């Protein structure tokens, strides 16, 4: 139904029902974003004081600094690596649960097993890698014991590797759930028909499963990309201060009260994020996807 044909009463009722939601989102999402946007145009005295006004100085400074490019490259590197690993693991875990587990109750049980950590603390799950990856951690102990290495590996913890491991550990669930959801809706008759028509299992994967899981992959990608690009604490803790991302630099700026610079960099990041998300949304109608 076209919204323009909706009778006025339905409009009023709809707005009444969503008004509490709007009453939360306006002051705590729209207004803060506008405040950050405004602050990015303000001047600063360098001690946390903001002078209302309109200057593009912060943008000029952020865009001219060589650091900005480095931060974006680092952020993109983490995002792409995390996306690839979560996609591969998430896709095959979902595929296994939907197409290989024959008992549906068992499939649901295994699915819940994957989702339970989502409802626990991310920070705790992140620091739980310390006893494994540390210089005296289990992995180094095992490798030393097996004689594979002579010196403990130092790249395991407090490195880019540790950052990616922590991201993949936390975010694969965001791929599994939507991909599982779209795979579970593939009609099994379609696959049987393909088998009868002589398709190989690789053909089925390529021509049926992957195309029909696209919307799940798109949804999962939105979650993974926006979380990695917006993250700062995994980068800060797991890299041991050795790496930075756009938001972790933002965090440092806020720490030294450089609000306009921080705000300008946040606005740029938000624009990049909006561009990526809307590109993905062009391939999938997320609302129809969820309500279907």
């Amino acid at each position, binding site marked *: 139904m076209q919204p323009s044909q909706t009778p006025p009463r339905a*409009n009023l009722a709809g707005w009444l029902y969503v008004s509490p939601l709007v009453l939360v989102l306006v002051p*705590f999402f729209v207004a803060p974003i506008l405040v950050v946007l405004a602050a990015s145009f303000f001047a600063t005295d360098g001690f946390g004081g903001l002078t209302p006004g309109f200057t593009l100085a912060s943008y000029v400074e952020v865009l001219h600094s060589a650091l900005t490019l480095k931060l974006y490259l680092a952020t993109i590197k983490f995002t792409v690596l995390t996306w690839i690993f979560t996609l591969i693991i998430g896709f095959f875990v979902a595929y296994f649960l939907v197409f*290989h587990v024959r008992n549906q109750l068992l499939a649901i049980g295994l699915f819940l097993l994957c989702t339970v950590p989502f409802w626990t603390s991310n920070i705790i799950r992140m620091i739980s890698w310390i006893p494994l990856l540390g210089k005296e951690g289990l992995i180094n102990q095992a490798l030393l014991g097996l004689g594979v290495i002579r010196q403990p590996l130092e790249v395991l913890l407090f490195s880019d590797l540790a950052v990616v491991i922590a991201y993949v550990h936390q975010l694969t669930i965001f791929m599994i759930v939507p991909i599982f959801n779209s795979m579970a809706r593939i009609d099994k008759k379609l696959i049987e028909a393909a088998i009868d028509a002589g398709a190989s299992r690789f053909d089925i994967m390529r021509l049926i499963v992957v195309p029909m899981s696209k919307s799940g992959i798109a949804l999962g990608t939105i979650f993974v990309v926006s979380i990695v690009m917006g993250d700062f604490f995994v980068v800060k803790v797991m890299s041991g201060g050795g790496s930075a991302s756009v938001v972790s630099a933002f965090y440092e700026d806020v720490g030294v009260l450089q609000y306009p610079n921080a705000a300008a960099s946040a606005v740029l990041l938000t624009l990049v994020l909006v561009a990526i998300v809307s590109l993905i949304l062009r391939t999938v109608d997320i609302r129809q996807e969820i309500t279907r």
Partner: protein
Amino acid sequence: MSAVLADMPETVAPATTKAIAPSKGGRPWTFYVLATLFSLYVIALYGPMFCIYILSFQDIRGGLVFPMKGHSLHWFVDLFTQVRTGDVKGSFDRSIKLAVIVTVITVVVSFLAGLGFRKRFRGDTVVFYMMIGSLVAPGLVLGLGTGLLFQALGLNASWYTSALGAQLSWTLPFGVLVMFAVMSRFNHVWEEAAYDLGASRWQSIRLVMIPVLAPGLVAVALFGFTLSYDEFARSLQTAGSLNTLPLEIWSMTLNVTSPSLYALGTVTTIVSFVVIGASLGSIVLIQKKRSSSAKG
């Protein structure tokens, strides 16, 4: 992401009659490869967490890595008695209270929004994308904006005002998305029948919709509680002078290098597991009650 989580229990009932995978024939080799991948994934998912639970039970000589040095509850006592580890007890109290408030608001607001989004209305897309925006926006940036807003309005930031709002901007989109999935399974005939029998709008919500949708509402509550209880990025700039538990853990990761950090991890995860268990348990219970009363 929440769609399946919400309807999982709904699909439990007819489960035994229809298996997803084709049930004939032998296992292809890919089954064994993928089963191995799945097992490794689950081990990698839970293994590290169990390491810190085990290590938190060391005695006073304990360190951050294996091998275990003795076993005792020393670090748990240390956690709640030592001043240098910060105000763990206070932040724990605040986090639980805040999570309860967030849960109640999330359930009520998401339920109403779910009712509203069933029919198209002018401007519904704007509200929908505002919600998606709130979900994907970097939490730290939103938190800073909220903090600056409160400062500009001359209000004090505190965990029960600014942090409450900042957390709702995170839990509500999840709650509403779960409601979308739940509502798409709701049969409108039941509601129509209630109206035909002379029920008012409020009666049909209270006597028909809420009981029917109860498992979905429990799922919304689970999201509300756990997402608030573990929320960090949005609370960092909005909680004011008193910390919530994740903020306390964050400051501990920066300056505490004893197993009391692990002990805190164990305690907070136990709380999460109790909440998850209670929610999933009550969903299963409601479904069981239903299927048995349907048969009898």
